[in-house]
């Protein structure tokens, strides 16, 4: 094993379904090789929740609320290279479907009108304020690389991370990219 210091990585989970993090775990035994090269610091799948200074920041999810934006901006400050992981971070994707409705319509549909809800109400305490529109992260901060996919499969994540570790920006083509 080389003496090179490990690359510090932090990941965050904004407005998304956690599928991209699940797909990251689908790296399976390749995780062992990966963790020889990187150190995972704060992440939804680790215990550390405060974002330290890191080399690479990885973002799953779109910016749906004020907290998402705060976390995103914090990560951007703390990392050298910021990577969007998956379609929600990259395009808004499924969370952005609500952009076709007003915020009120969305909340009423989600918390009151759902078929399984009885006497529901829209929560307004201890929850972050929703943004009027869901937006991809590159509309808030500079993004250095993106991994498309909903979720990106483990091979795409592996390809992108190994390229980044080699100091190259991943280049997508029909053999390694999917939007679904």
């Amino acid at each position: 094993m080389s003496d090179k210091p490990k690359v510090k990585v932090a990941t965050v989970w904004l407005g998304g379904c956690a599928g991209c993090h699940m797909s990251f775990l689908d790296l399976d035994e390749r995780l062992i090789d990966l963790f020889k090269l990187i150190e995972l610091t704060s992440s939804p799948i680790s215990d550390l929740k405060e974002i330290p200074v890191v080399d690479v920041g990885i973002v799953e999810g779109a910016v749906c609320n004020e907290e998402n934006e705060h976390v995103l901006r914090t990560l951007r400050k703390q990392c050298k290279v910021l990577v969007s992981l998956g379609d929600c971070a990259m395009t808004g994707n499924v969370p952005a479907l609500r952009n076709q409705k007003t915020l009120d319509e969305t909340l009423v549909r989600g918390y009151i009108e759902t078929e399984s809800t009885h006497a529901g109400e829209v929560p307004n305490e201890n929850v972050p304020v929703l943004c009027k529109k869901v937006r991809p992260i590159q509309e808030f901060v500079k993004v250095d690389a993106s991994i498309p996919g909903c979720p990106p499969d483990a091979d795409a994540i592996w390809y992108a991370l190994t390229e980044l570790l080699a100091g190259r920006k991943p280049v997508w083509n029909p053999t390694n990219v999917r939007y679904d």
Partner: protein
Amino acid sequence: MNITLTIDGKKCTGTAGQTILEIAHANGIAIPTLCYMKNLSPWGGCRMCIVEIGGSPKAVPSCATPATDGSTVVTNNDRLTHLRKLTLELLFSERNHVCPICPMNKGDCDLQQQGYKFGIDAIRYPYLYPTFPVDLSGKFLGIDHNRCILCTRCVRTCDEVEGVHTLDIGNRGVKNQIVVDLNTTFAKSTTCTNCGACVSACPTGALFDKNAAFHGPLTKCRQVRTTCTECAVGCGLVVYTKENRIVDVFGDNDSPVNHGHLCARGRYETWAVQRDRITQPLVRKNGKLVPVSWDEALQTIRGETGKLSPQTKGLLVSGKVTNEVAGAIGKLKSRVGHIGMYVADHEASFCGEPAFASDAFQRINDSDAIILLGAEPSRLQGVVAARIRTAVRKRGAKLIILNARTSDLDAYADVVASVVGVERAFWNRVGATLKGTKRPVLLYGPNAMSPVGITAMEKLIQLFENGSGPAVIGLPTTTNALALSGAGVEAVDDVSQWLTGGALRAVYIVATDETDGGAKVLRDREVVGLLKGFNYVVVQAAYNSRLTELAHVVLPALVWSEKRGTITNFEGRELPVSPVLEPHGEARDDKAILESVFA
């Protein structure tokens, strides 16, 4: 005139008037496209096919730029790639292209494929996230404007191929969207024929077939080429199947008959409409039809009819059966005294001397005047109607319609008459309309054989007496009636007369996969009573109907997608019918059933 130009360093020849894209494609040089579609007028709207021409600083759309002799064209360099990426990013940012929830995901979307090809990931423009409606009111197709890139392939197809121009672009600027008629829905459209050509043309998931959506990507389906057996046109089909069910049906672009175009019957009604399929042989016991084994059904038929003399047995077949079934029927003549084919009204005399109209489509395409006499292509042969519309609307052909029933074609006609008499004024008007036409075509259907039709035919012939007559094209209603008639299966003019004419006591009706289950046989009201009076009625059909309810034995037949054989279309082309699916239930092939019953 031939021209030569250099494309990406390669000497390419073409004809003057051809576009750069056409010449490049013909010479094996790929240029990415989105709004371009072969056989449609160029649009030049998407800007994916841009190229550089030596001496000009502008990038021009190769699909809409005529090639010039001696020019030098570059189709691919860093600048063009950069511009194409910008184009794609603008397209992605403009609407709500959410791949994971789109039915064309995983291979069926040209926009997605171009995105992959150019490695588009995070885009540099802010997403507009507009709010666009979804119209699911169509019988077979839906449109989600959120996925539309305004390439107008649907608009041009609707206008130039189907000829109805239901679709167009409405509104201005970023609010541009495809509109149906004067901004109504598919359900309320008065012009849409449900031909589905717009869906075939759509490069994204904006237009989709409701019955195919979310049944898996077509790129992963098995593809089988076969022939539509719904009418006598004989359009080529490409059927997409998965796990022994049909996912979607499209026209075969390589078919010399329809060149990829279909009507609602061929494109949708054969698979997207639920029908009451017969899956097992049925035998009447104590007044009720009950499922039995094939052996029992065949034994019952033999037991009941075996002792009957041939003269008391009748075989009445649908004009929809294949040529191979006709061959099997020919061998039964010694065992069955009366063999006939049931057809549409007046179609028997139409079949009298089977006349195939070779190159009919070419003649319609080339014509400068079309006379429709007792034919209803709009209702019965949608692809022929499309050719007539485009001949009139795009090439200014005259149209004269002499038919009892009205149709949408009336709107395009110069003369329409539902009742034809001998008045001089009327025929003068017809004559004036046809005056000076060089390539007239007369399309006549079975109704031309009615007394009124014959009068009109005589009048028309008089009009042409002094010049060269029109090309005459017979348009049968029944799929294979002309060929079956030619093979010696006589068309029956009057079914009740045929049933009472001989000493019939048992009748065997082959309705095959007639969509009405053979109920057409009962068109004359007396037929029901006559059939009830027979000792034995066997019906071989794919679908339950009023006819099968009258039967003593019902034998399950294959449908179009399970058959193998040939049919002969109205042009006289023998076309292959290939099985797309495994037989449903215990259904068997028409010919095999006849052979085992009469073994």
